């Protein structure tokens, strides 16, 4: 039996009405709220919009600048991430006490902080420190100090300190290379920073990362130089000892592997403590950082003096205008007179001498006699074939091509002067490149500062410019320079060196000739004799004649000898002197200037 539903009373109808009204009310409120949210979202009030800011945040990921490495992978320059503190004056609770607060927190100078913040109250970013120590960063992070933040910054470190400073260069505030290898290799070393944009909530937590705007960072590439920092350091220490002991104005040393053209060390030092001498040029304005100084091994030519003679000697011999055993009419006690009547003086007079003896004893008269047998074109060809007058293009910034007299200005005077290494300006890089011809049996190498197989695409090209037999003959003759000639004072106990000394008068800084009693002393040598591994050049500028000898063989020669002994032993080259066992002691303190 069906029971009929209870009859709806007026109370039921009333309840239904109220319920319907309540639901309609709730729906209306919800519609209004949703409408307001939509309105705030789409067309917010200006004040609200400025307070809310953008709902997107961007996080920048710095790219690491590549390391500079030496030929054995030692780190020369590397990058870390540091932080510096900044203040946002708008959110600082009390600007009057912020300096004191930071002094208590991380030891900053409150006066300095106030000095920086005071004039920039309207700014939102006022840097107040340099790169902070890790403990300072940690303290700021933990303190929760309002209005104080940390800005990440890339920091470049040079673990080898000042060794090879000009060669390596430095980076600027924006971490771009400003000098030396840092500038040269900037494209490879610099990476590209990453960027991530994300939608954030009110607590700045990411809600969504847009994959289309995400760009990962790309670190820079590590670059390996041909420089060996152990050799470089030894070279600099030895050179510094010499220029200080000689009260010289400065000095330059280049160490080259002639077989590959790789530069193993390039040192350029000036003597800041030198006692000034009359006629010295006004000191140059020192660069703010030694790493910004120019590398004079590449930029500043000098007169090579007698170190230039082997090139003319070898070329003339190859041309057949003279043979090593030919006896020349060199003078015995009085200066030689050239065809044009010019008087050519020798340091010592030996009378009639062979062409070989001319080189061994460094006789200007003999060089002048043979120079007059060569025609102008031949002498100019000699200069250009050995690479003088053209840049080595090894990559060092600011390299110059040296100074070579033009054909138009070339005279018989020039012809004779050049044979003795005068009236020509060469850079140390050009000298070691040219001298390598004797070490490689006639090949002129291309110089390199970047290790092969890395970022240097240039091929290791060598040009044969001298007959191998002539190159070897010149090398053996220069061995006699060491045993019987001007190199006797700087013979090695370990290796058979072949080399040549040079002593040229110092040109006046103001122009107009040369100083009478001031010199550029230089020495260039290679070793071992049979299969040379290294060529080293040392140039000492203006050694003080009042202190000791000034000849190249006595001043620059010992530096070359010590550098060769050390570098060859370090490279594991077996000594080739008779009755010698073992190696030079690499840990022994370097010798100071010889008396």
């Amino acid at each position, binding site marked *: 039996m069906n029971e009929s539903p209870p009859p709806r009373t007026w109370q039921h109808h009333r309840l239904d009405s109220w319920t319907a009204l309540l639901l309609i009310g709730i729906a209306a409120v919800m519609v209004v709220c949703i409408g307001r949210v939509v309105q705030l979202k789409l067309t917010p009030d200006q004040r609200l919009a400025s307070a809310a800011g953008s709902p997107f945040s961007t996080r920048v*990921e710095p790219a*690491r600048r590549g*390391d500079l490495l030496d030929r054995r992978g*030692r*780190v020369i320059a*590397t*990058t*870390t*991430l540091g932080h510096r503190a900044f203040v946002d004056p708008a959110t600082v609770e009390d600007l009057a006490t912020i300096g004191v607060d930071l002094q208590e927190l991380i030891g900053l100078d409150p006066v300095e902080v106030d000095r920086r913040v005071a004039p920039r109250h309207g700014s939102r970013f006022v840097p107040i420190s340099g790169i902070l120590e890790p403990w300072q960063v940690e303290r700021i992070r933990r303190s929760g100090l309002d209005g104080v933040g940390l800005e990440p910054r890339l920091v470049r*470190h040079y*673990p*080898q*300190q000042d060794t090879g400073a000009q060669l390596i260069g430095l980076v600027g505030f924006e971490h771009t290379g400003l000098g030396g290898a840092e500038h040269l290799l900037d494209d490879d070393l610099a990476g590209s920073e990453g960027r*991530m944009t*994300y939608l954030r909530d009110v607590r700045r*937590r*990411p*809600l*969504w*990362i847009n994959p289309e705007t995400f760009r990962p960072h790309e670190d820079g590439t590590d670059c390996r130089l041909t420089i060996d*920092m*152990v050799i470089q*350091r030894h070279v600099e220490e030895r050179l510094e000892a010499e220029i200080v002991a000689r009260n010289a104005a400065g000095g330059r040393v280049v160490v080259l592997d002639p077989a590959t053209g790789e530069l193993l060390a390039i040192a350029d030092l000036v003597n800041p403590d030198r006692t000034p001498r009359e006629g010295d040029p006004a000191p140059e304005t020192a660069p703010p950082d030694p790493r910004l100084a120019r590398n004079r091994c590449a930029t500043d030519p000098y007169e090579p003096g007698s170190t230039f003679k082997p090139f003319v000697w070898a070329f003339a011999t190859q041309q057949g205008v003279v043979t090593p055993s030919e006896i020349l009419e060199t003078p015995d006690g009085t200066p030689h007179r050239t065809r044009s009547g010019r008087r050519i003086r020798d340091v010592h007079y030996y009378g009639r001498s062979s062409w070989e003896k001319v080189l061994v004893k460094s006789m200007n008269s003999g060089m002048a006699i043979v120079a007059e047998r060569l025609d102008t074109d031949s002498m100019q060809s000699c200069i250009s074939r050995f690479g003088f007058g053209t840049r080595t293009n090894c990559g060092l910034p600011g390299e110059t091509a040296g100074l070579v007299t033009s054909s138009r200005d070339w005279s018989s005077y020039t012809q004779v002067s050049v044979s003795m290494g005068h009236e020509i300006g060469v850079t140390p890089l050009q000298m070691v490149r040219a001298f390598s011809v004797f070490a490689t049996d006639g090949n002129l190498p291309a110089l390199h500062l970047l290790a092969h197989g890395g970022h240097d695409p240039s091929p290791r090209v060598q040009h044969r410019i001298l007959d191998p037999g002539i190159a070897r003959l010149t090398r053996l003759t220069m061995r006699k320079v060491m045993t019987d000639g001007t190199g006797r004072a700087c013979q090695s106990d370990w290796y058979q060196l072949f080399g040549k000394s040079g002593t040229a008068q110092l040109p006046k800084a103001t122009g107009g000739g040369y100083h009478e009693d001031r010199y550029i002393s230089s020495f260039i040598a290679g070793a071992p004799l049979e299969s040379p591994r290294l060529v080293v050049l040392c140039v000492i500028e203006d050694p003080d004649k009042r202190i000791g000898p000034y000849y190249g063989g006595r001043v620059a020669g010992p530096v070359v000898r010590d550098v060769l002994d050390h570098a060859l*032993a*370090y*490279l*594991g080259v*077996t000594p080739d002197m008779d009755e010698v066992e073992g*190696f030079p002691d690499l*840990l022994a303190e370097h010798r100071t200037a010889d008396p």
Partner: protein
Amino acid sequence: MTIILVATCIALALLGFRQQRLAIVHEMVDTHRLLMEQRRTMWTTRQRIAEACRAPALKEWLAEDPTRWLAINRPWTVVPVGTQDQP
């Protein structure tokens, strides 16, 4: 009533998915940040190693105890080919 219940369940499920997605994004960002921090620690470590391996620093370390030098046994000593000890 059924409609309300179904709508509520769907809404809750959607909210749950959203929350899960947010958690994943947070985790991703945290992981990314951690990676970057580790990377920076590695940079610093590389720099410290480079400082410690400077020639003067090594020289000083060797000077402290001469036996250290003997242990290194002159790595540049030339051993003629064919005379090395066979394993």
